[in-house]
């Protein structure tokens, strides 16, 4: 649990304070300075329009990490609600919720996101919409699975007999059992969201220029691959490192929870 806490804090710090420590304006065009090699005032060099790459990377954290945070949390909320409705709401609600989940799962999520973002027109709102709509199903499955096992426990039966509202039962009796597993799913979905945002950016359906999102930066850098190959390294490295850190934290969390389960 602690590793995930640290991770969340680091991600948030980077997204919030990253832009503040950036040495230059990430969108300031400075043509005479274009395609500089790393060194001097431009630690990682400059891009084709003379913008400082380090500053763009730091500002990019707000887009890449911040948006991934938003998208994965929205998915968490929507998925948990749908999963709990399926677990608590009787056979018909379960059937509808699970066939809907199947339908959304029956399609490669990233391709669906590409189609949605592409068709609705590029922009931050459509990006969030596209990735949220395609990113809630795993939460729903986990919430339903655990919810079903919880619903047969004695204390849930007692709460229902006492006349507690479904909302209160969800809050007090389902959520505490769900949270550990949902957190593990969340770390996975956060990593996926980072990859999704940068992939959509790279394909041209994501965050729009001049905003410095990591995938979009790679798309720009691609054209100048021959003259300044290093430009292509940095944004990709940023994606890999953040995804790697999140996955490792998720693995650690999963192992810790499995150990705790084994003890009980």
């Amino acid at each position, binding site marked *: 649990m602690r590793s995930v806490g640290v991770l969340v804090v680091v991600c948030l710090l980077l997204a919030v304070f990253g832009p503040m420590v950036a040495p230059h304006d990430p969108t300031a065009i400075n043509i005479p300075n274009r395609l500089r090699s790393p060194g001097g005032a431009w630690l990682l060099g400059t891009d084709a329009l003379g913008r400082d790459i380090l500053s763009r990377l730091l500002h990019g954290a707000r887009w890449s990490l911040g948006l991934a945070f938003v998208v994965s949390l929205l998915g968490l909320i929507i998925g948990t609600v749908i999963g709990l409705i399926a677990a608590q709401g009787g056979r018909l609600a379960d059937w509808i919720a*699970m*066939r*809907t989940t*199947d*339908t959304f799962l*029956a*399609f*490669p*999520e*990233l*391709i669906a996101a*590409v*189609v*949605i973002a*592409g*068709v*609705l*027109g590029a922009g931050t709102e459509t990006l969030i919409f596209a990735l949220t709509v395609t990113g809630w199903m795993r939460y729903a*499955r986990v919430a339903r*699975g655990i919810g079903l096992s919880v619903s047969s426990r004695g204390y849930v039966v007692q709460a229902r007999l006492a006349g507690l509202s479904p909302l209160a039962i969800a809050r007090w009796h389902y959520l505490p059992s769900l949270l550990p597993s949902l957190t593990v799913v969340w770390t996975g979905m956060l*990593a996926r969201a980072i*990859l999704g945002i*940068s*992939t959509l950016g*790279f*394909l*041209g*359906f994501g965050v729009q220029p001049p905003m410095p999102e990591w*995938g979009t930066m*790679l798309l720009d850098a*691609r054209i100048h*691959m*021959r003259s300044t*190959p290093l430009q*292509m390294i940095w*944004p*990709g490295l940023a*994606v*890999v*490192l953040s*995804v*790697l850190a999140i*996955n*490792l934290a998720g*693995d650690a969390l999963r192992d810790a929870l499995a150990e705790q389960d084994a003890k009980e």
Partner: protein
Amino acid sequence: MIRIFAGLLARAVVVLTGTALATFALLWHAPGDPALSIAQARYGTVVSKEVLDFIRAEAGFDDGFWTAFWAWLAPLIQGDFGQSSVNGRDVWPDLLTAMSYTFPLALVSLGLGLAVSVPLALIATRRPGSWMDRSAVALASVGVAIPAFWLGQLLILLFAVQLGWLPAMGAERTAHSILPAMTLGFGLAASLTRILRSGILEARGQSFLPAFHRRGVAQRNIARDHVAPHAAVPVVTVLGLELAFLLEGLVVVEVIFARPGLGSFLVNAIFARDFPKVQAMVILAAVIFVVVNLLIDLIYRILDPRMDGRDA
């Protein structure tokens, strides 16, 4: 068995109908007038109002969502994917051509992924916790974190730009497929290694295995008769999961390497706002996905008859 198959089939039909409906609803609400783009594709940029009205009536746009949906779905069920709204040509032949580029690449990548991951997972699990195991895990963890679009670029940079050994763009020769297959195969190998490794370890941990050791059954026979079927179940699952990864990777890789496959087909259709093509591609991907998952479900039940679906 027949009842199970009928159940799975019914589920597949529900899922495909849902996908068709969701796709159509999305395009219905997309910004822009679909009739205008069809008219412009057929008759040039300047279009009279009469022509627009004619096209709207023809496609059922005037009679509301459900009529228009049926006007698209009815021919689709009979295998008619409609015509491109950009050049008016039938979509299906173009789709077939694109498939002929995509499927071989997908198969080669999958083969590459398995060829790397299976031996790696076997070596790693011989002694769990050893340096071999740990480096395999580390490699796989880094591997799954590398986005395909970046890896593809790096491979181009190294092998095409710096070394000049391999061609980067296009699909004319076999050599053109090497870098794309490496890109996809690498990602597949990484995630396959992770899942195979834990599958093998889990199978070994099963309680009946120590009993065989005590009875003196040869190590090799245990691996063949008891560990292999248990590792096979996760492999089949993984192939189902990796299918999504493979299809997503194909889109990215085909765009990077400018291959005229299904991925480029989709992305170009979106940019051109050629909605009949987008719809056709989405339905095709859904059919592939559902059919493969159906087969996997069946194999599952044959491998392990106790299994009651994978969502339990």
